[in-house]
């Protein structure tokens, strides 16, 4: 198992203001699996995603990612998991003062064993794979919404992460560019055998999933197998 969540509880606030968000979540995802997570607003999808990604600290239950226990973990463990995870945000979250190519390189600069030319080469390959070979030296503000999201997919995948975590990646895109983006994501992930956990409200993209998990009020409500 790449992601193994067991009996995870999580609350915001403290004392009488405690607001439970996750109530005993169990979720296991195998290597290479593409899992979509749906559910109404406030059901705890994003919170679960941030805990799995090592961005938020949980203190109750068990969250084992790539063999590392994240519950009550230290900063180093979380940073280690973050470096093996690619994130795709609802907003593209590209660095506006860097070109598309430089943005993708930011992921690779964490890998100190690469030379500058290797980084450039891999970033160029990745941008070509998302169909942006002629937009490499554009700044984000000169790109369309769909192009920005594809740069951010390239950025997430460039470091060859073992896990991709995506939060509503199609929310700010129109139907066609949204579908193109997740299609590229799926195709590249399958090539690299990357595990994907994708939170979405967008029922138009459910077809890319191996499995759909539905969350409601902090519980896993249903698991739909797709054949």
């Amino acid at each position, binding site marked *: 198992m790449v992601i193994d969540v067991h009996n995870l509880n999580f609350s915001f606030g403290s004392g009488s203001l405690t607001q439970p968000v996750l109530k005993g979540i169990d979720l296991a995802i195998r290597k290479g699996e593409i899992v979509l997570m749906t559910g109404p607003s406030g059901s705890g999808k994003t919170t679960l995603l941030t805990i799995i990604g090592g*961005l938020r600290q949980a203190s109750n239950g068990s969250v084992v990612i790539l063999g590392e226990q994240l519950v009550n973990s230290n900063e180093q463990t979380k940073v280690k998991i973050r*470096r093996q995870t690619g*994130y795709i*945000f609802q907003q593209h979250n590209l660095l506006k003062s860097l070109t598309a190519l430089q943005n993708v390189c*930011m992921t690779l600069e964490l890998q*100190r064993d690469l030379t500058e030319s290797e980084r450039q080469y891999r970033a160029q390959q990745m941008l070509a794979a998302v169909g942006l070979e002629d937009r490499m030296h554009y700044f984000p503000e000169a790109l369309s919404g769909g192009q920005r999201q594809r740069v951010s997919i390239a950025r997430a995948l460039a470091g060859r992460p073992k896990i991709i975590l995506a939060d509503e990646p199609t929310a700010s895109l129109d139907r066609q560019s949204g579908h193109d983006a997740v299609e590229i994501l799926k195709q590249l992930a399958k090539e690299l055998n990357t595990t994907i956990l994708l939170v979405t409200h967008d029922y138009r993209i459910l077809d890319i999933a191996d499995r759909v998990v539905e969350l409601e009020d902090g519980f896993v409500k249903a698991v739909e197998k797709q054949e």
Partner: protein
Amino acid sequence: MSIVNTWYFPTRLAWRQLIHDRLKLVAAISGVLFACVLVFMQLGFKDALYASAASMPLKFDGDLFLIHQQSEAMWRPAQFERSELMRALGHPAVAEVAPLYLSLATFKALDTQVKRTLMVYGYDPDTDLLNVDAIKTKKHELRVKDTVLFDEYSRPEFGPVSNMLEAGQNRTEVNDYKVTILGVFQLGISFAADGNIVTSDLNFLRIFPNRSAEEIDVGVIRLQPGAFIPEIKEELRAHLNDFVKIYTYEEVLEHERLYWENAAPIGFIFNFGTIMGLIVGMVIVYQILFTEINNYRFEFATLKAMGYPHSYFIRMVFASAFILAILGFVPGLALSSSLYNLAESQIFIPMPMTLEKAVTVFVFILFMCTTAGSLAIHRLDSASPADMF
């Protein structure tokens, strides 16, 4: 290798973010430049002040100097008995002693007749107390009654003395006493006196009728060749009354400099100006770094989510501060150099741009920028990757 790795990437990112918004970068650089010029000018004026204040004993030709302990600075000395100086002659290592008389006096400008205050040096011309060639060559003429030599580096308000002398106009009044100007020499002015004249001891007593030959301002002692000055100084010290102080040449310069630095409020004013300049510059740089971090905090949070450690962003902030320091310092140095030249031509006080001064100011500016950086760092805490989704 590891230093390159840890600093190269954050510095490059800081650089890319800084040059992305040119307008803001220009504003930031102007802030540093402003502080830079301010500090350069304060230090320049301060050093010029000390240099010119200390220029009074600079040309004194002697090994040891006696000054009354009540003399705060040489431009307003307290007198002591000439016999006190003569007592030093009893020491076998002392070759000769010479009294120096000093006083401020009014000098009537040759052209405008306006009276301004200058410093009058009086000593026996044969002793060559001031090591200035133009005075030494005129020592016989100076023996004539009511003659003086004029410092041509005096402020121009005293009139174009050199030109007037060539035109044959050489009579004026010092302390309302008519004198003849024999010629000019070059000494340089100080903050205490706008000009200088040199005359013989006898003429000095004529110009200042209420002064007596027995009351001297500075006692100059010359030792036999090869004498060990600090040792002789200690031996003489034991023979002299406590109300006179004995200084070596270096100490008498230091004594003058310390007066302007501490006793006079002027040193404080310039130090205060320097500190204010640095604080204003620091606030500007802090504001710029703070807004920068604030504007980029979502990007920082994104990078944190990607696995960048907190220390990376701290290095980035310091790299930004360092870049701003350099980009502000270089034009600041150029601008200050030309302002120094302007000041030299306007106020006739030497303001050299020395390497030492440039390094000092750069260290100040660097300190200012890194302090601003460390104050702005707390804003990084607002970049939390958990809020990114």
